[in-house]
C-alpha cells in the first residue's frame, strides 16, 4: 500500500505542549499554571444571550462573513478603542477563533516560496500554518534584554527579497511582552520601506497593564498593509465559543472569505449572537477581569523578585516568563522535575520556539489563592535546586 500521508504535514512537529499535557492529565493531584485561557466564566449576560438565541431558534448558518449586526459592532468597537476605521461590509469577517484567521490570512496572501517572518517565542500556530500555506518561515529570536519586543534592527536583519509578511504577535503569548507606540513606529518604517504586509495577532489587546494597546494598523501607512486579528476568547473569557475576527483591506478579506466559505461556511451562530451582547454591554466585565489579572501580575512579579528569579515585568496578556538559566537545566528538564517533585505544571519556554530555552511560561489565569499555593511550591523547588548546586 502507498503511504497515505502528506510529506509536508508529517514533517511538521507536533505542538511541544502536548507532551506535558499527557503527563499532567495522568497526575490527579497536580496543580497547573499551564493554562492559556481565562479562569473566569463567560459573563452571564453573554451566556444568557447565547441561550436566548437558541430558544428563539436562531440555529441556522449566518452569512459567510458573519452576522451583519456583529460586524457592525466589531467595526464600532475598533473605532471606539483604537480609532481604526473598517467598513463592516467589506473589511470585517468573523472567524472560528483567532486561530482560523491566522491560517486563512496566510493562505490568502502567500505564494509558494514567499518568506514569512515570525518573531519567537510566540503562539504555536504561526510556523506550522505558514508551512501549510507553502511559505518559508523565517524566525526572529526575540531577546530578554529587549523585554521580548521586536526591534527594527532585528526585523531589518531578517528581511530578504523573498520576504512578504511579518507576523506581529503582541501582546505576546508566552512572554507577556507588548509593543508600545514608539516600538511599532520603528518597525512600521522598516515594513513600509520594504513593501511588506503584517498579520497582527491582537487577541490579547484588552489585556495590557501600561496604557491601552496600540494596534500597528493605527500607525500612518500601516492600515493598508495590515490584517488585524482579534477575537472574543481572551477579552470576554469565551474560549470555548470559538469566535474571532479579521479586519483588513477589502481585497485581502475577499480572498480570505473564499477559503472560509469553502472550509468553514460560517462561525457558530450561537456564539455570534452572544458576541453581539459582549461588544454592546461587556465593557464592565473586561475592566473587572483586567483589574484582577493586573493584581495577580503584580503579585507574581513581586514573588519572582523575592525568589531571585530574573524576570522582566510583563505588561500584557496573562503570562509571566521567568528565566531559569541559573540552574543549568533545559526548560524541559526543569518543568519535568518541577512537575514530578512538586506536582505543579508549567510550560517550558521551548514550546513556543527554540529561543524560549531557559525560560518558563507561567500563566496567571488562576485565582490569587491558587497562585499562592503554586508559587509557594516553586519557591521551595528553587531553594532545593540552589541547595543541590552548593
Amino acid at each position, binding site marked *: 500500500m502507498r503511504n497515505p500521508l502528506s510529506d509536508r504535514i508529517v514533517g511538521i512537529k507536533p*505542538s511541544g*505542549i502536548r507532551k*506535558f*499535557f499527557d503527563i*499532567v*492529565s495522568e497526575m490527579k493531584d*497536580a496543580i*497547573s499554571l*499551564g*493554562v*492559556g*485561557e481565562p*479562569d473566569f466564566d463567560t459573563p452571564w449576560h453573554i451566556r444568557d444571550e447565547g441561550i436566548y438565541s437558541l430558544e428563539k431558534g436562531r440555529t441556522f448558518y449566518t452569512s459567510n462573513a458573519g452576522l451583519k449586526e456583529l460586524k457592525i459592532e466589531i467595526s464600532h468597537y475598533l473605532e471606539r478603542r483604537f480609532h481604526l476605521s473598517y467598513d463592516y461590509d467589506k473589511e470585517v469577517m468573523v472567524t472560528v477563533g483567532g486561530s482560523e484567521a491566522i491560517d486563512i490570512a496566510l493562505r490568502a496572501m502567500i505564494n509558494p516560496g514567499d518568506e514569512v517572518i515570525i518573531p519567537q517565542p510566540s*503562539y*504555536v*500556530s504561526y510556523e506550522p500554518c505558514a508551512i501549510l500555506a507553502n511559505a518559508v518561515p523565517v524566525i526572529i529570536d526575540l531577546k530578554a534584554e529587549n523585554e521580548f519586543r521586536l526591534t527594527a534592527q532585528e526585523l531589518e536583519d531578517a528581511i530578504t527579497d523573498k520576504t512578504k509578511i511579518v507576523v506581529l504577535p503582541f501582546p505576546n*503569548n508566552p512572554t507577556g511582552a507588548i509593543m508600545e507606540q514608539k516600538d511599532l513606529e520603528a518597525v512600521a518604517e522598516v515594513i513600509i520601506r520594504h513593501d511588506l504586509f503584517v498579520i497582527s495577532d491582537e487577541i490579547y489587546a484588552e489585556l495590557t497593564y501600561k496604557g491601552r494597546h496600540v494596534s500597528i494598523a493605527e500607525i500612518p501607512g500601516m492600515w493598508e498593509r495590515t490584517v488585524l486579528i482579534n477575537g472574543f476568547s481572551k477579552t470576554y473569557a469565551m474560549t470555548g465559543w470559538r469566535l474571532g475576527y479579521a479586519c483588513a483591506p477589502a481585497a485581502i478579506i475577499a480572498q480570505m472569505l473564499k477559503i472560509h466559505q469553502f472550509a468553514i461556511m460560517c462561525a457558530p451562530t450561537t456564539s455570534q449572537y452572544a458576541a453581539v451582547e459582549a461588544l454592546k454591554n461587556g465593557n464592565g466585565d473586561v475592566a473587572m477581569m483586567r*483589574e484582577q489579572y493586573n*493584581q*495577580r501580575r*503584580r*503579585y507574581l512579579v*513581586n514573588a519572582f523578585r523575592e525568589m531571585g528569579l530574573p524576570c522582566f515585568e510583563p505588561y500584557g496578556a496573562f503570562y509571566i516568563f521567568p528565566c531559569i538559566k541559573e540552574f543549568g537545566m533545559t526548560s524541559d528538564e526543569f518543568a519535568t522535575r518541577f512537575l514530578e517533585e512538586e506536582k505543579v*505544571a508549567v*510550560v517550558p519556554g521551548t*514550546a513556543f520556539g527554540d529561543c524560549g530555552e531557559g525560560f518558563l511560561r507561567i500563566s496567571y489565569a488562576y*485565582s*490569587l489563592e491558587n497562585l499562592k499555593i503554586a508559587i509557594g511550591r516553586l519557591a521551595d523547588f528553587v531553594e532545593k535546586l540552589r541547595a543541590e548546586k552548593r
Partner: protein
Amino acid sequence: MREELLRVIEKNSRIDLKELAVILGVEEIDVVNEMAAMESEGIICGYHTLIDWEKTSIEKVSALIEVRVTPQRGQGFDNIAERIYKYPEVHAVYLISGGYDLLIALEGKSLKEVSYFVSDKLAPLDSVLSTATHFILKKYKDHGTILARKYEDNREKVSP
C-alpha cells in the same frame, strides 16, 4: 488606588496589608494610611464575615418586612427608621421607593421571636400603618457570593 482597594477588600477583608500593597502596586504604608483615612471618614464601616448559617447546627430565622409608615413633619422617615434600627435583631433598614416605605431585614432565633418583634414592637409604633412579613426560605446568593456552589476548574490543565 482608593476604588481598587475598596473592591479588593470588599471581597476579602482578611488579606494582609503587605500583600494588598503588592497587588495594588503601592507602598504598604500608603495602604495603611488610606485604610485609616477611609475608616475615619466612615467609608469603611466594618470588616464582617459572610457565614452560611444553614450549614451550622445553629437555628436562625430571617425575614424581610415591608413597612408602610406616615412620615413626620420636619423629620421625614429618619425618626421612625431610627426607632426601628436600634433593635439589635434588625440587620438592615432601607428606605424604598414604590409601594411601601421601609424594608427591614430581621434575624431571629425562631419564627416565634420574629413574629413577636413584628406584633409587639414594630406594628404598634404610632407611625407604622401596615407591615408585611416575608420569611426567607433559602439563601442562594448573599453579598455577591453564591452560597450553594463551589468553584471547580474544568479547564484542560495545559493549553497553548
